[in-house]
């Protein structure tokens, strides 16, 4: 009997100690800054758009030390949804009910505002091919055909169905090729474009039917930079890269590209957060570590 009593005492003591620790952790907590890892196109786009008041981009200033970096969109959402003081950014298409999307500069993140350009936090989804090969027409027939499809109105329809903002300009109707095509197309790049690409490949196979049945499309997405390097290194003319941020000036010489859709980057916080609106400059201050509490935003 004595032993059970002691056990109970020990357990009670532990519980008391834990509650004490919990109680000690009251007061307003710092902001938990959640970002993506460095190869991510979402991060690249976010850091290029977010600028301080004097025009320095977050990319040049550098992410604050100690930010949480996650390699997956879902992890960012999951962390924000369980962290009352969390803030993160993800593709608008991935957002669910577990988090709250903030207005940026007073503008709601939706298709309309993205297209009109009012919503600042947007980036294109780009399709990239090797520039030299493309200009010399040395892409394989299958790749050329697939690229043709990606530029088509049918592809744009899928883009819209999937909740992204379509790019109106220059789309034409795609028809299945006259001859049977075959060969391998290697798709790689942005994980954000990956789900959209899934649907696009499905539609391509559907429209192309028997003519493109011999075309094997293999897809492996590990980040925009991965796609960029695959396209640069392409010699067979069958590499297609997916990018989730605008192609950089430095890469223009080697990469032919067009954008297939626009995507909004949603700034997300915990649903219980009372904040509704945030400015780009405030985002800059948060991600560089200058603002560490949400109350500082409300005061400003």
């Amino acid at each position, binding site marked *: 009997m004595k032993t059970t009593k002691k056990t109970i005492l020990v357990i009670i003591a532990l519980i008391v100690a834990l509650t004490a620790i919990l109680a000690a952790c009251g007061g307003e907590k710092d902001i938990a800054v959640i970002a993506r890892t460095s190869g991510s196109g979402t991060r690249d786009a976010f850091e290029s758009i977010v600028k301080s008041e004097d025009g320095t981009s977050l990319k040049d200033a550098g992410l604050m030390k100690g930010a*949480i970096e996650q390699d997956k969109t879902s992890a960012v959402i999951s962390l924000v949804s369980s962290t009352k003081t969390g803030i993160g950014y993800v593709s608008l298409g991935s957002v669910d009910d577990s988090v709250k999307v903030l207005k940026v500069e007073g503008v709601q993140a939706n298709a309309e505002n993205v297209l009109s350009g009012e919503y600042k936090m947007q980036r294109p989804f780009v399709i990239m091919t090797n520039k030299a090969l493309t200009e010399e027409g040395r892409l394989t027939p299958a790749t050329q055909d697939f690229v043709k499809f990606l530029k088509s109105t049918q592809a744009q329809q899928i883009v819209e169905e999937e909740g992204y903002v379509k790019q109106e300009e220059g789309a034409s109707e795609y028809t299945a090729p006259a001859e049977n095509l075959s060969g391998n197309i290697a798709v790689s790049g942005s994980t954000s474009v990956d789900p959209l690409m899934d649907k696009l490949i499905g539609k391509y196979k559907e429209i192309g039917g028997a003519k493109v049945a011999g075309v094997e499309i293999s*897809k492996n*997405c590990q980040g925009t930079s991965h796609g960029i390097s695959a396209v640069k290194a392409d010699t067979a003319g069958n590499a297609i890269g997916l990018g989730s941020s605008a192609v950089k000036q430095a890469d223009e010489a080697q990469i032919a590209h067009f954008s297939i859709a626009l995507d909004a980057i949603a700034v997300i916080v915990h649903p219980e957060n009372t904040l509704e609106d945030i400015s780009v400059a405030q985002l800059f201050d948060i991600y560089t570590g200058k603002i560490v509490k949400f109350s500082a935003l409300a005061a400003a």
Partner: protein
Amino acid sequence: MEKNSIKEKCGKLLFAATAALCIAAAAAIFVFIIIKSVPALAETGVGEFLFGTTWAPDANDVYGQPLAGSYGILPMLVGTLVATVCALAVGGTLGFFTAVFLSYYCGGKVKAVFTSVINLLAGVPSVIFGFFGIKVIMPLFNALSPTGNSSGLLLTSVILGMMIFPTVASLSKTALEAVPSAYFEGALALGATRDQAVFRTVVPAAKSGITAAMILGVGRALGETMAVVMVAGNSPQFIGGLFTSFRTMTANIVLEMGYAGEVQMGALFATGGVLLVFVAITVVLLSLVTSDKKTKGRGGKRRGNFLLNGRRACFAGKVCGFVSAAFALAFLAALIIYLLVKGLPHISTQLLFGAYEYGGEISILPSVAATLMTVGISLVIALPLGICAAIFLNEYAGSKNPFVRVIRGAIDVLSGVPSIVYGLFGAVTFVTLLGGNYSIAAGALTISVMLLPTVIRATEESLRAVPMSLREGALALGAGKLRTVFTVVLPSALPGIIAAAILSVGRVMSESAPFMFTMGSSIQPMPEGAMSGGTTLAVLLYYLSGENLYTDEAYACACVLMFIVLLLNAAAEVMGRLLQRKFQGEKNVNKKRGRKRALERAKENA
């Protein structure tokens, strides 16, 4: 006779050659990682690489030009070490006390239940651990953190601790049970309480075995990748507290490998090289500990262990044992219930058996096919090689032979190499060899190398369990050694070998890091052959949970994966029982115990 002796010699040579293959494999891993990392080290300077405090790689850096990025891994080096030590503090303590509880404080049924709990925990894929950590444990800790988010050391230690817990618990249990019962009885006879007998006599006697268990736990914690990536926070800075985001070396590799530039890639390989050095150190430590004959049988000597001196302290130890075991059970139960609640409602026929086309509904069928192909290919390669090597080690080689010692060292190294380093190795060898594309074949080859130590150890244990009298009988009847091995020893050890195969299947199922850079990591339609890319179930789970679009499917996939792991565990258990029953006629009690231990050890090796 002449013909026979040639056959015998050839047989022996063949077995020796397969065993030597382990040395080759271990050497190849080191060589390839070093070759790949030397240019980067030359570019950055070894000192700058090891002791530089900033990791800010630039993907555009190429060899021979001034570097734009900086490549210092010290923060991650420290991060890895601190996380490992903390994980050991959690998992080692829990594991040790659970082992004590299992060995001395519980009866047959409870013990059986807990033993299978430990085995199950050992089989849980690390992706699922990470998933569980981020969804369930993290919110629990969030209130404690100054930022409101608990990514960081504490969370990582708990998750890693639970991952190394089964290793430590089952190995410590084996060590405790190996202590002659006379020690325990003697202590009781001298008037010690049960608790004192356990903690002051048996535990000190099993010290070397327990230390070995801890070292193996350290090895596992050092190399863990997929779970750590989810819970550590991943900022490449020094650990500043329990809740600051930090990055481990393994996480660094898996996070940046996918899109690394030239120099960056080299630096990542060098990071793998540093990990290998740590592995080598743990292997050396392990061999020092286990070969230390002096520590054995010194249990009776009075020790100055002030913590466990009095009766009260020993009693507290017992309570810790109960609490640890209960905690492990609760953890596993929470994990399984969580997955079931979240995943079960989303398991549908489309998900399980539907065809997957690009753009269609998600189905795990292509991944199941890819996984089966990987399992098939890797077993065809690893099983024969592993069994032959085990035959050589157990039937032919004397233990004093230096060649054999090197082989054993190589096997230890192979089993200690982190899975992400296997991934790196596979990416530079098999992927390049097979034409530069990710393929199932490349993934299967990579995992085959990884399976070798598992197969060898499990097979060896079951060979050891075959009574000597059987061999002697066969030899006395005039059979040659080869014939004895193939017609008498191997058939008797068959259930154990099958158990080894099942353990290997489990390993292939639960690993993900070695496949990401060899087989591919996005969802793909039905593989058309061994040369097409594919994703195993564990990698698919990682992918599905990625963009927050297929969360339900991810849970369902996790459920299926857990279910398969459960089944495999049960199957391995049944095989183990068969092996035991087979030799039940054998009266020798000592040997019986040996077999039992052998089975347990075979399971731990998984």
